[in-house]
C-alpha cells in the first residue's frame, strides 16, 4: 500500500500541476489517436466505397477526377459522354450493368444527380445491401420527381410531397434557379455512402432541364459500370485508355482512391509526426512539473527516509507518480479523441457522405496510452534521481 499511498497523496498535494500536466497529455494523446484513427479509417473506408460498381466511364481526363465526381459527388465533371458511347458500353458483352449519371445542378448546395431508377432497384451498393427507401417511392423515369439521400433530406429539411426548383451549377447561386418544379417522391434510408448527400432525379429531367444546352440533351456525365468478370476490366482498360483517346475508363475504383491516399501520404506523415512531437513535449511537461516541485518535496522525502523509506522507494514513487499522471491524462485523452474524431467524422460526412465511426476499436487505443505512460514514466526518471539523491540530515531542519 505504501507506493500507491505516496503517489495518490503526492498527486493530491500538487493537484493543480497534476491537472494541467494530465490535461496536456490528454490533448496530446487525443490528438495522436484522432490523427491515427481518422487516417486509418479514411483510407480503408474511402478505398472500399464504390457503391457497387467496378469502374466508371467518362470524358477523357483524370481517372481520379472521374471517380471523385461520379462516385463521391465531389469535383466537377471532366466532360460529357455521348449517348452512342453510353449505349456502346451498355451493350458491351463484358459489361453486366451500366448506369448513366448526369450532373450540373444543385439544390441549395446539395448536388442534383440524374440517373435511372435501376440504380435503386438493381444495384447492391455493398455486398447484400440495396438502397432502401425510408419513405415514399422511387421516381418515375419520365416524371419531374426526386428521391433525396437521407443526409440531404435531413439538411434540406424536406419530406415526401415537398417540391423544389433546382439551381443551375454545382455551387449554389440563388439567382440561377431553373423554372422546372420537382416533387419529392421518396427519401432514401441512410446507406453511409456518398449517395446520402445527393438529390436524385431522372436523368432525362436533368438532360432537358430548362436552360441546359439542348445539343447535349442526350449526353451523360459518366457511366457507372459493373463488369461480368475482373478480366473484363483489363480488356476495357486497353480499349478505352490505351487504344482510344476520347474517353477515360477508371478501373479499378479502389486502387484509384488508394493512389490518392498514396499521393497525400506525406501529409499523413506530417500530421503523425506533429502528434508524436506533441506527445514528447507533454511527457517533457511531466518532467518539468515534477522537477520544479522537487525543492518543495525535499523535506517530505527526507521525512520519509527518516521513517525508514529506502532510496529506491522514493525513486519508484516519483516514477510511478509520473506514470500515473500519464495514465490520468490518457484516460481523459479518450474524451478528447471522441470530441476531435466525432467532429472530423461529421465534417467528412457532410463533405463526402462517407461515415467514419470513432467508436470502432483501433490498436492505437492500446499502444498510444501504453506508449504515453512509458514516456511519462521516463520523464519522471530525472526528478526521481533527484529524489534518490536527497540527503536526509540536511533536509530535516533544524539541527541542534
Amino acid at each position, binding site marked *: *500500500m*505504501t507506493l500507491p*499511498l*505516496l503517489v495518490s*497523496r*503526492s498527486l*493530491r*498535494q500538487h493537484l493543480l500541476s497534476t491537472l494541467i500536466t494530465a490535461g496536456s497529455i490528454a490533448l496530446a494523446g487525443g490528438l495522436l489517436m484522432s490523427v491515427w484513427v481518422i487516417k486509418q479509417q479514411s483510407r480503408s473506408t474511402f478505398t472500399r466505397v464504390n457503391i457497387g460498381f467496378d469502374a466508371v466511364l467518362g470524358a477523357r481526363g483524370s481517372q481520379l477526377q472521374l471517380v471523385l465526381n461520379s462516385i463521391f459527388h465531389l469535383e466537377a465533371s471532366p466532360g460529357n459522354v455521348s449517348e452512342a458511347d453510353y449505349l456502346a458500353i451498355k451493350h458491351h458483352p463484358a459489361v453486366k450493368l451500366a448506369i448513366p449519371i448526369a450532373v450540373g445542378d444543385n439544390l441549395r448546395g446539395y448536388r442534383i444527380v440524374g440517373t435511372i431508377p435501376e440504380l435503386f432497384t438493381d444495384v447492391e451498393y455493398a455486398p447484400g445491401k440495396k438502397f432502401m427507401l425510408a419513405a415514399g417511392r422511387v421516381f418515375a423515369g419520365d416524371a419531374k420527381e426526386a428521391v433525396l439521400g437521407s443526409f440531404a433530406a435531413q439538411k434540406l429539411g424536406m419530406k415526401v410531397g415537398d417540391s423544389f426548383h433546382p439551381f443551375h451549377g454545382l455551387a449554389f447561386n440563388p439567382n440561377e434557379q431553373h423554372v422546372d418544379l420537382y416533387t419529392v417522391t421518396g427519401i432514401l434510408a441512410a446507406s453511409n455512402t456518398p449517395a446520402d448527400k445527393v438529390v436524385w432525379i431522372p436523368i432525362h429531367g436533368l438532360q432537358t432541364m430548362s436552360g441546359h444546352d439542348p445539343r447535349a440533351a442526350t449526353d451523360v456525365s459518366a457511366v457507372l459500370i459493373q463488369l461480368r468478370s475482373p478480366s473484363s476490366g483489363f480488356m476495357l482498360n486497353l480499349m478505352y485508355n490505351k487504344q482510344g483517346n476520347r474517353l477515360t475508363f477508371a478501373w479499378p475504383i479502389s486502387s484509384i482512391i488508394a493512389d490518392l491516399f498514396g499521393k497525400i501520404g506525406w501529409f499523413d506523415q506530417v500530421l503523425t509526426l506533429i502528434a508524436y512531437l506533441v506527445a514528447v513535449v507533454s511527457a517533457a511537461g511531466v518532467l518539468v512539473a515534477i522537477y520544479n516541485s522537487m525543492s518543495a518535496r525535499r*523535506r*517530505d522525502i527526507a*521525512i*520519509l*527516509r*527518516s*521513517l*525508514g*523509506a*529506502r*532510496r*529506491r*522507494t522514493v525513486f519508484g514513487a516519483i516514477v510511478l507518480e509520473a506514470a500515473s499522471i500519464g495514465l490520468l491524462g490518457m484516460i481523459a485523452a479518450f474524451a478528447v479523441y471522441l470530441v476531435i474524431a466525432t467532429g472530423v467524422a461529421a465534417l467528412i460526412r457532410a463533405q463526402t457522405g462517407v461515415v467514419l465511426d470513432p467508436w470502432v476499436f483501433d490498436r492505437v487505443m492500446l499502444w498510444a496510452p501504453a506508449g504515453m505512460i512509458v514516456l511519462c514514466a521516463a520523464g519522471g526518471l530525472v526528478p526521481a534521481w533527484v529524489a534518490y539523491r536527497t540527503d*536526509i*540530515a540536511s533536509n*530535516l*531542519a*533544524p*539541527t*541542534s
Partner: protein
Amino acid sequence: MSLLTIQSLQKSFALPEGGKKMIVDVPAFSLAAGQQLAMRGESGTGKTTFLHLIAGILAADSGSIRLGEEDMAQKREPDRDRLRARTIGYVFQTFNLLQGYTCLENVLLGMSFGPGADRARAKAILERVGLGHRLHHRPRQLSTGQQQRVAVARALANQPALVLADEPTGNLDHKNGREALGLIRETCRETGAALLLVTHDPAVLGAFEEVSDFRTLNRAAEAGP
C-alpha cells in the same frame, strides 16, 4: 541488559574551505533496554548528529553502534534504513509530519516501512495519545501540541526498542511541552522502549531521573569550536 552500545564513534564533515571538522567523537556510551535518559547539550554541540548516527540516517566514519545484536555503523544504507524502521522511533523538534497526509496516514506510513501497516493499531495508538477524534485531520488542522502527539504516535507505532527525541518540546509552550514530555515518557514505559532525549531545556532535564551531559560525552564538543 544493554540495548544500545556505542564505542569509539566518530563523525566529521568536510569544511567548505577544505579540511574536515570532527563533530562527534564519543568513546563509549550505553543505554539499557527500557532506560530513560535525558542528555543536556547546547546548540551546535552535535547532539542531532549523534542521534542521526544512532538512527543510521548518517553513516559513521568509524566506531560501532550496537543495537541489540546488530551494528548500525557497519551496515550499508539500505540495511540501516530497514533497521531504523524496525527498531527506532524518532521524535523531532519540528515534528516532521507529512502535511499532505492525515494523522492516521502519517502513522500508517511510518508503520509501512517497518513491520507493516496495521490500521487498527494505528488508530489505537492515536487514541492513546488523545487524538482518536482527529484521525482524518491534516497536521495543519491541529494545534502544535496535537501535532507533536501525532509525531509521538508515529514514533511508537512500530513498537520500537529505542525512541530518540531531539528537543521534542522545543517548539511547544510550557503546558504543551510538559504534556508532550509526559506522553513520550509514559508511552515508552508502556511499550518498554528505551528513551534517549536530548535538550537544553532545564525544565525538561529536571523531569528526568537520569541526566548526562553531552559536552562531557562528546570529545569533539569538549574541544570547542
